[in-house]
């Protein structure tokens, strides 16, 4: 149940959480991410040690702005765990906090 606080928040006052951050990812032959670099990760490409999970999201395919993402939960060489996704329509890679 969501308690109504008495005032509805205005859209221009909202700041979205978990916004995707663009990163550069080099992939292997089958599209599996191998290295990642970008803001919030590292200036230099960091090797990916393992892929912990992967899933796909297809949404709004009935609209003019469909979403088709391939998510990868990866473990970097230095031990950090990141969630990356590949926007399959735009062919761009992003990092995103998922929680």
């Amino acid at each position: 149940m969501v308690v109504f606080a008495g005032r509805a928040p205005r859209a221009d006052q909202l700041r979205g959480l978990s916004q995707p951050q663009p990163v550069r990812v080099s992939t292997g032959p089958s599209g599996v991410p191998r290295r990642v670099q970008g803001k919030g990760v590292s200036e230099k490409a960091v090797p990916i040690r393992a892929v912990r999970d992967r899933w796909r999201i297809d949404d709004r395919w009935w609209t003019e702005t469909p979403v088709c993402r391939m998510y990868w939960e990866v473990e970097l060489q230095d031990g950090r765990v990141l969630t990356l996704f590949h926007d399959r329509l735009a062919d761009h890679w992003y990092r995103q906090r998922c929680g």
Partner: protein
Amino acid sequence: MARRDNLVSTANPHPNPKSAFRIPQLPDRAAEPFAPAWVACAWIPRFAVWLERQRQPGLPAGPLVLLGPAEAGGKRALELTPAVVVRDCSHEAEAAGIHRGMPAATLARLCPTAVTLPFDMPYYQQRHGALLEALDAVTPEIEAEPLEAFYLDLTGLPHLDPEDPLGMAEGVAEGVRLACASSLLSLPPSRLPVRIGIAPGKFTAWVAAHHATPARPVVITEAERAAVLRETASSLLPVDAEMRRKLDLLGLRTLARIEKLPRSAMLAQFGRQGERAHRLACGEDREPLMASRPRLVIRETLEFGDHPPTVAHFHLALHTLLERLWARPERRGAAVRQVRMEAPQEAGDIWQRTLTLRRPHEGWLTALGELKRRLDGLLPTGAVLALSMELTGLAGRVDGQPVLFTSEKQLRRERLRDALDHLRYRQRLRGQPPVQRIVELDPWSFLPEERHALINYEA
């Protein structure tokens, strides 16, 4: 002292050579139903100077002068910037020719060695209020005359027997001294310069107090009153400084001289206060006491022991003291508007802060939040031995209807609001909201960026 000898020498068939107490003749109460039968005057001469010496024990023993803006009501009341004058001074300073009301500029010429301090009226008033509250233990009917005199109505007190003047005077004196000692920094009663005068009338009790010493109260009976008043200096009359000056210029320096004048002449010359002065000089001292309502002060103290407290300990002490003060039954559920803290330090000085809260607080947790925030950067720098806290400003009610059952959620929200104020104060942020809260947009969305958003906490 001659005047005191006069008091002892008459009317008592069994005089006690060690005291000046007399067997009183009870006045006729039916003649003046509103005047108290017996009034005790507790007079603390140079109260402000005495307080400063207690507050700063390191002050040199020589002349001490308290300087402050001239009181309103005099000739300087219309000036935009009040002149700095002597508001109080020690005996040594007075011996050098300094007196109250004198311009500060004359100090350098008359007494160049005098130590000067600012006249800290809020502090003296606070101590005066604490005294008034403590004297409530003696009698509930008290008239306080700032800053040095208290008049106590002794009529009908079960523990004071009018037939035993010696016991009555000693009982009052002891009660007053203990009350004073309990409220004023817990000093030994012997150090309090309280002079007690007891008489069947307010002005006569005031005169009696001037004949008393801190160790020896004085009682003036109805039979002795006329003789004592005749020898009394007119400077003791409760008149303004201008009339006092005129009386001096006219040579009316004793009440006997005033008594001989026609009352109409006094009325014509000085107006209502002239008529009143004549009445008092004639011994017609039946003015009722204007009872001052003592301001409620609740006090708690916490000692820190051998180890000086850290900031965390100090905050914990604030927490404990506030919790204790709030639980005191005297508060009677009133909201608190002002908190006074006092902490003696190892070096001998005393850290003091009086904080008037931004709004009356009904809960101690919210008051604690504001106290911590306001004290940020103002905590004592030396090793603190103890911390005393007083709730001095108790508000009868607060704006808005109080919540009967305060929920944990409401308490949390109040704490958050206080913490938010704290952040804003510390970061000096203006306009920019320092804290945001998370709101749910579409928690079941497949896309993480559409599930939650941040918004200004106060939006």
